[in-house]
């Protein structure tokens, strides 16, 4: 039964390093049992935020609670959280088993209890038989598993993961994504996960917090972040988006900077400068004039066709702006080439209008 108290509560958390503001007035609540991703480009403050929760940094101002208890000034060894470090940080002078047992031994857990818990943790990450290996005798993926076991064996209230899949190759990373997600469901612990890889965040998380420049820009479920970005950065950073600059000129109407007016519903007052975000796969390509009635559309010319194997990207230009349209590569698909006159259409509800 998940607790009603948030697992992690950040209130107006700011962290300065000298003149640099790494984390800027962040408010965030992460629910018990949630798989939460902090997503952003490098230097956006996501890792600092994680380190603040871990106790490896202390906030300059603000309140930090874990299950209601203020922990902002406690050292890491007195917080009920554990971390999986980016490079795993396994102790090179200890075996896998000793690494996993470290936290329990430091907490003076009775020996009789340590042994079964270590065994269970190693079984949980499928590392049976590797107990006596040292970290340098393990592959990257195996080190990752030991690092997970080393943290999970302590039954932390919150598990913090700093780019845990960053050092793995693509195939292994994809396999570990699924496994990590399954593992989180199995143990039921709140996971807070830092990544710069939006695909990873979308695939694994219950909710995502997008950060840039030390600020938390948007928090929401993956579908929400993807379909309803609330600002230009989020629209640009998550997936591919056509970002069209313009101004609201009437109810549900935006006039783009190239003079073309399109239908784009929003509740922004006329005169507001906005960016219209349209996902390439939400746009459809037709012979000129062939757009469905209820669709918004613009006429243009195919400038370039990019072959991706499973899909094609058509770059359609209209009055010096352009829209990328993605079409799955299916038999009988539109046979349109560069130079053809076309119409691009989309459901009015599938664009996101964000204020600049």
């Amino acid at each position, binding site marked *: 039964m998940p607790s009603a108290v948030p697992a992690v509560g950040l209130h107006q958390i700011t962290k300065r390093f000298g003149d640099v503001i790494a984390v800027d007035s962040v408010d965030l609540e992460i629910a018990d049992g949630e798989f939460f991703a902090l997503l952003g480009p490098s230097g956006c403050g996501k890792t600092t935020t994680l380190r603040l929760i*871990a*106790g*490896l940094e202390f906030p300059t101002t603000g309140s930090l609670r874990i299950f209601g208890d203020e922990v902002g000034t406690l*050292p*890491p*060894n007195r917080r009920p*959280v*554990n*971390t999986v*470090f*980016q*490079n795993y*940080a*396994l*102790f*090179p*002078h200890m075996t896998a088993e000793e690494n996993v047992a*470290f*936290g329990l031994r*430091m*907490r003076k857990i009775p020996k009789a209890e340590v042994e079964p818990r270590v065994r269970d943790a190693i079984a949980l990450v499928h590392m049976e038989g590797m107990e006596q290996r040292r970290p340098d005798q393990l592959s990257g993926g195996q080190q990752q598993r030991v690092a997970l076991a*080393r*943290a999970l064996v*302590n039954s932390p209230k919150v598990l913090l993961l700093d780019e845990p899949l960053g050092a793995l190759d693509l195939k292994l990373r994809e396999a570990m994504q699924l496994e990590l997600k399954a593992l989180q469901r199995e143990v039921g612990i709140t996971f807070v996960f830092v990544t710069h890889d939006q695909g990873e965040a979308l695939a694994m998380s219950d909710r995502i917090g997008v950060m840039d420049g030390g600020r938390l820009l948007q928090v929401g479920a993956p579908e929400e972040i993807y379909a309803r970005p609330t600002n230009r950065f989020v629209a640009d950073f998550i997936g591919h988006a056509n970002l069209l600059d313009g101004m609201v000129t009437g109810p549900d109407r935006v006039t783009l900077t190239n003079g073309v007016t399109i239908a784009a519903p929003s509740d922004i007052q006329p005169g507001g400068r906005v960016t219209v975000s349209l996902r390439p796969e939400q746009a459809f390509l037709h012979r000129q004039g062939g757009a469905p009635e209820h669709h918004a559309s613009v006429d243009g010319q195919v400038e370039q066709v990019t072959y991706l194997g499973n899909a094609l990207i058509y770059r359609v230009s209209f009055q010096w702006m352009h829209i990328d349209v993605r079409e799955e590569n299916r038999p009988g698909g539109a046979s349109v080439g560069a130079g053809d006159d076309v119409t691009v259409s989309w459901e009015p509800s599938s664009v996101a209008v964000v204020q600049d």
Partner: protein
Amino acid sequence: MTLTAVPPPSGPGPGGAGAALLEATPEFERAAARADSRRGFLLSLPAYVYLLLFFAIPFGIVVIYSVATRNTIGGTDLAGWNLDSYRRLAEPIVRDILFRSLWIAVLTTLICLVVAYPFSYFIATRTPTVRNIMLVFVMIPFWTNFLVRNYAWRVILGSDGPFAAVTEALGLGRQEILFTHSAVILGLVYGFLPFMVLPLYAAIERIDGSLIEAGRDLYASGAQTFRRVLLPLSMPGVLAGSILVFVPSLGAYVTPQILGGGKSTMLGSYIVVQFLTARNWPLGASLSFVLMTVMLTATLIYFRAGGRNL
């Protein structure tokens, strides 16, 4: 440098018998390995010659003299080998100096370790620029001659020196430690501290800082993290520094002579007395041999403990 062995093709190559495939035959590999080792030998020849001329041969002479006999006029008879001079090592006066030298060297090493460790850790955790500046500070004393620095300590510790003035000002009375064991240990610690700092720094600097953080994250206190993570991982530096301080401390001559008052406080002075004053070369040689054996043992322990990785 070794060549990667290419497995010989099991049959004719795809091009048939006429295809001229470049192939490392076993003969070629053996020849390459021979050329390699010959080149290595030639390159290290100067070092071998140096070691032979200035270490192996003199060491042999010392061993020969140590089993020779002192004659009545202070000369040495090389004929009639015996172990008399080694038996004399058991005499109380010699034994006392041996043990005193040992404990002074051990104490010097321990003090250096305790003083240098936090300092080295501090340097290793600074930014690269600050690190380099601090390392230069560590090296600065070497710009002045060792002998001069020891005489400087004599002035500092002397009866009218600043040391006595400071202890008096602190209400401890005029403390004069010159010509005591304390003065010798102080001088040795001062002289050999950089030899402890540098390997410790090198060892600590190589430790990934996230390991310390992982220790703290896994419920270890600062002290526990030091004992369980930092200290074991910096052990190569601890060992290297200890050997580098212990070995010259044990054989120290200048510092005990100047700050110890030339009372044969340590083995080095006593050996000099045997050669120059007492004209008992066999005893001096046997003492030198024992000293070198102790040092060699210490060095071997270091290499056994994996110090060669440093």
